[in-house]
Structures are given as C-alpha cells and as structure tokens.
C-alpha cells in the first residue's frame, strides 16, 4: 500500500520543481489539493496503472484542470507514467498540457474550462446506476468555479436522481483569480447551500490525511444522496511563502524560491 504522507510529499516537490522548470502558473491550487489526491490515490480509489481504462476502476473527474500539476504529479508518483514522460510537461508536442488532458494515461477527462466536469460525472454516475456498476465516481471542484451556473444545474440533478455513487470534493482554499472568494463572489453559507440542494454534506480539514481517509471511506453508505465533501484547504499549502498568497495563482518560482520551497518541503515532509 502507498503511504499518503510520502505520496503527498513527493508530489509537492514535483509540483514546485515542474512549475519552476516550465514557468507554469496555478501552483497554489495544485498544492492545496495535493493531500486530497494523495489520500485518494493511496487508499481510496480502485485503479490499475497498467489498465487505466479498466471497466471496474473508480472514475475521478478533475474539474479544476488549471491545477494540473497536482494531478499529473500524483499520477506519475503512483506509476501511470514515467518521470521522463511528465518531464515533457508543456513542451512542443507533449500531451501534458497545462490544463489536464485525457490523452494522458489515468486522466478521465480534459478540463480547463470551469464548470464542466460535474455534469459529465453525473452522466457517468447515472450510467453506473443504470448498469448496476460497483465502481464509484469522484469529482474535484475548485471553490472559484462554483461561480459557474452549470455547476448548479448539476448540483440540482445529482440528488434528484439519487446518485449516491457520486462524491464531490470541493477544494475550498478561499482564493480565486482576482482575490478572496468572499470578496469576488461570496459562496457562504456554502454548507447550507449543499444541504438545501439535497446533498450529504461533510466538512473536513483538506490537509488531514486521517480525517480525509475517514470521510472518503465512509461517505458511500448514504442510501439515496450524493455526497459533497467541503475540504478546507490552504492555497499554496506546504511552502510557507506561497500559502494564502494570491500571487501563486500566477507566478512560477525563481531559482532561489525553488531552493527555498524544496527546503521547506523537506523539513515538513522529509
């Protein structure tokens, strides 16, 4: 079994290193979701790295496609492809585009335009229901993309059709493109909104592996409702000078900043 602590640690180092090398953006949102991805890919999801499209796999739809480095790094660490392959990230001709691409093994869906994946996940979950499938459907949304109306169409749809084979995880890092979620377009009371829409609604510390493992393991027991897990996270988590800083939605680390970031990550998660 993969250890989620070491998976998140190695993935974070990979994220900052690749962002530095390729001058990539969206490092903050990749670091905020790393622990959720590490727990999912270490002890929750059913998958086979040698058969990425195996019929009985759990399906994960990554709606916050801009935070691609988080998913690319974790999928590489668990063995969907080599470090060399991921090293082509954003190079001419590479399928590792800077919004996630389904042409990469292990990626179910290309995203990048926000507010798309949840509807598709609903369709997949509906198919699962109609076929009495045993697999489960997961979708990871950013907080900012909850501004998109299409998400709320899907948020109405899933409970109405009792899609209890669907789990949504919101990476609630509280910062979107132009500033805090609260100031740009307030989502609160977010939990109440999901409850009112008919979702089994859980809040969790999105960096606490044990708590994440617990809620992700136990949410499938609801009889009729889909589940939404509001994961309270910190944008830029793991690198103190990136944490809660809007600038790291855009910036890539300089040589000095990379060195410093790797030192911090080594101290926190050796």
């Amino acid at each position: 079994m993969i250890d989620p602590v070491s998976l998140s640690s190695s993935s974070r180092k990979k994220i900052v290193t690749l962002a530095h090398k390729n001058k990539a953006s969206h490092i903050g949102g990749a670091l905020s979701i790393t622990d959720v991805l590490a727990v999912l890919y270490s002890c929750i999801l059913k998958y086979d790295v040698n058969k990425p499209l195996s019929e009985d796999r759990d399906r994960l739809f990554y709606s916050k496609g801009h935070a691609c480095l988080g998913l690319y790094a974790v999928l590489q660490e668990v063995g969907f492809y080599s470090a060399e392959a991921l090293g082509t990230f954003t190079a001419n001709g590479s399928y590792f585009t800077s919004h996630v691409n389904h042409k990469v093994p292990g990626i179910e869906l290309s995203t990048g335009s926000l507010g798309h994946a949840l509807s598709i996940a609903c369709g997949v979950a509906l198919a699962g229901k109609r076929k009495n499938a045993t697999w489960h459907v997961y979708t990871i949304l950013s907080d900012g993309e909850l501004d998109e109306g299409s998400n709320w169409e899907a948020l109405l749809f899933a409970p109405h059709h009792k899609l209890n084979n669907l789990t949504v995880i919101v990476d609630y890092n509280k910062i979107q493109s132009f500033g805090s979620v609260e100031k740009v377009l307030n989502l609160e009371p977010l939990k109440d909104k999901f409850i009112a829409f008919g979702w089994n609604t859980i809040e969790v510390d999105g960096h606490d592996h044990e708590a994440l493992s617990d809620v992700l393991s136990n949410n499938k027991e609801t009889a009729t409702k889909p589940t939404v897990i509001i994961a309270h996270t910190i944008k830029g988590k793991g690198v103190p000078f990136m944490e809660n800083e809007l600038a790291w939605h855009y910036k890539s680390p300089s040589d000095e900043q990379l060195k410093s970031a790797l030192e911090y990550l080594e101290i926190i998660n050796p």
Partner: protein
Amino acid sequence: MRTAFIEQLIEEAKVNTSIFLLVGDLGYSVVEPFASLFPDRFLNVGIAEQNMTGVAAGLAAEGYNVFTYSIGNFPTLRCMEQIRYDVCYHNLSVKIVAVGGGYAYGPLGVSHHTTEDIGMLRTIPNLTVCAPGDPIETKLATKHFCNSNQPGYLRLGKAGEPVIHSLANAFEFGKILPVIDGTATAVLTTGSMLSYATDYIKKNAVNWSLYSVPVIKPMDTVSLAEIAKKYKQLITIEEHQQSGGFGSAVLEALNDIRNQQIIPVIPPLKIIAIPDIFIGYAGTQEFLRKEAGLIF
C-alpha cells in the same frame, strides 16, 4: 420531421440497447412513446441544457449512444462549449437534435429563430452537421446517427413537412441527393428549404436542376465537383444567416476542389441566405422567409 425522427429512433432503439434519449423538458407529445417503451434509456433532465450536454457526454463515455433533444438554440448555441470541449474533443457519441430550424417557430420571436446554428457548429472538429430536407432524409439521418459512434448534429424542422423523396429511392447518408433534373442552373438546398425549392421549380416551370444537401459537414465534394462541372450557374438557398452558413460551406468546398484542380473553374454562385439581420416581429415561417429574402 420530428415525428419521422422519433419513429426512426424508436425503431433503432428496439434493436440497439445503447441508444439513450435526453430531453431538456421539451418534446411534449413527441417523445412520450420513446419514454414509455424505454424508460431506462430516457431522461428529462429539466430546463438545463448545459448540464444535459455534460450528462450526455458522461453517458456516452460509458458506452451509450446519446441523443439530446430540445428546441433550436437551446441544445446548441447555449451549450457551445460543452459541445466543443466535452463532446467533440473527447469524440463521444452524442447526437444533438434541435427542432425548429430556421424560422419554423416564426411567431415565437428571435429567441426561437434558429438561424446561426450551422455556422457555429460546423466549425467544430469531429462533428457531423446534418439538416434533413424532408421526413425521408430525417429517417435516413437518424438511422445513420443511431449506428455511428461519432458526435453529430441533427437540425430538424417541425412537424408536417411534405415528403419530397420517394421511399423506395434508397440513398446513402452523406451524399448530395438529386431531386429534379434540369439544365444550365443547379439549385442546392439544405434543410426544409427543399420543399420551397421543389414547389418553385415545378410551379414556374423553370428548367433548373435541384439537389438536396442534408449533410453540410463533411461536404460531399465528389458530387459537388460533378455538379460544378455540369452547370453554368449554381444557386444555394438556406434558412440560416449567410455568414458561415450552407452557402459559405459550398463556396469553401468549391474553392478547395478548384485549388486541387479537380474542377477547372468555380461556376457563378448565388447564395440566398439571411442577410445578417434579426427579424424582431412576428410572422409565419413563410412570411419571415420572404422578409429575409429567402426567395428565388
């Protein structure tokens, strides 16, 4: 046309268990027979077309051949990005069906005038764009889409369009279809302008040939090249904006085959289409077509 569509869809669904129909809370008195025969492959998703298109993509990813059904601009223009990115980039088996092409819902106003769909949708890779001209063409197109696993767009009229083709006259999906044989001038139509063109040629005894072009993309360039060689003058007529529409598609194809030296010269081409206007007053389909200049 919508009746022909649903009848053919039911016939196919009896033998093809992958066919799934989603409606956006529209289709009253049309889709009920499908819903009652195949309840596990039918869903009214509500008035939420973007979600409908995403749900269709998800169902298609799991092996269904999904038809989304609504009026005119709602399953099309409103969902352009879901169609482009979710359906067509992933090359999923979703067929978008719009009823009320052109001014079919004339009195309902500009919201229901479906006059930019062909131009917008034919720019998207992987998407077949089809506007049948009569119930026979509709059945042919529906049959094709039921047996294809590629994205498709089916632009229908409403109900009650006359049958132009003979039932016995079997033809191949994707081909330009000869309707009337004449000389000198060839008229190319798409969608339900077919019946207007047929009536006009017969009533006025003009010696024109008439071809129906239900599949706008990919264009049947082999037949088009033969037509271009045979006639001195071409006319296209469509119930759609001129910019990016059917006439534009014909002109682009003619230019390509001219550049490939398949034809020596492009014959003079008159494009009859909506001249970049909205019509903000009520009217029947026939009235609005005249107002827009969609007459010979």
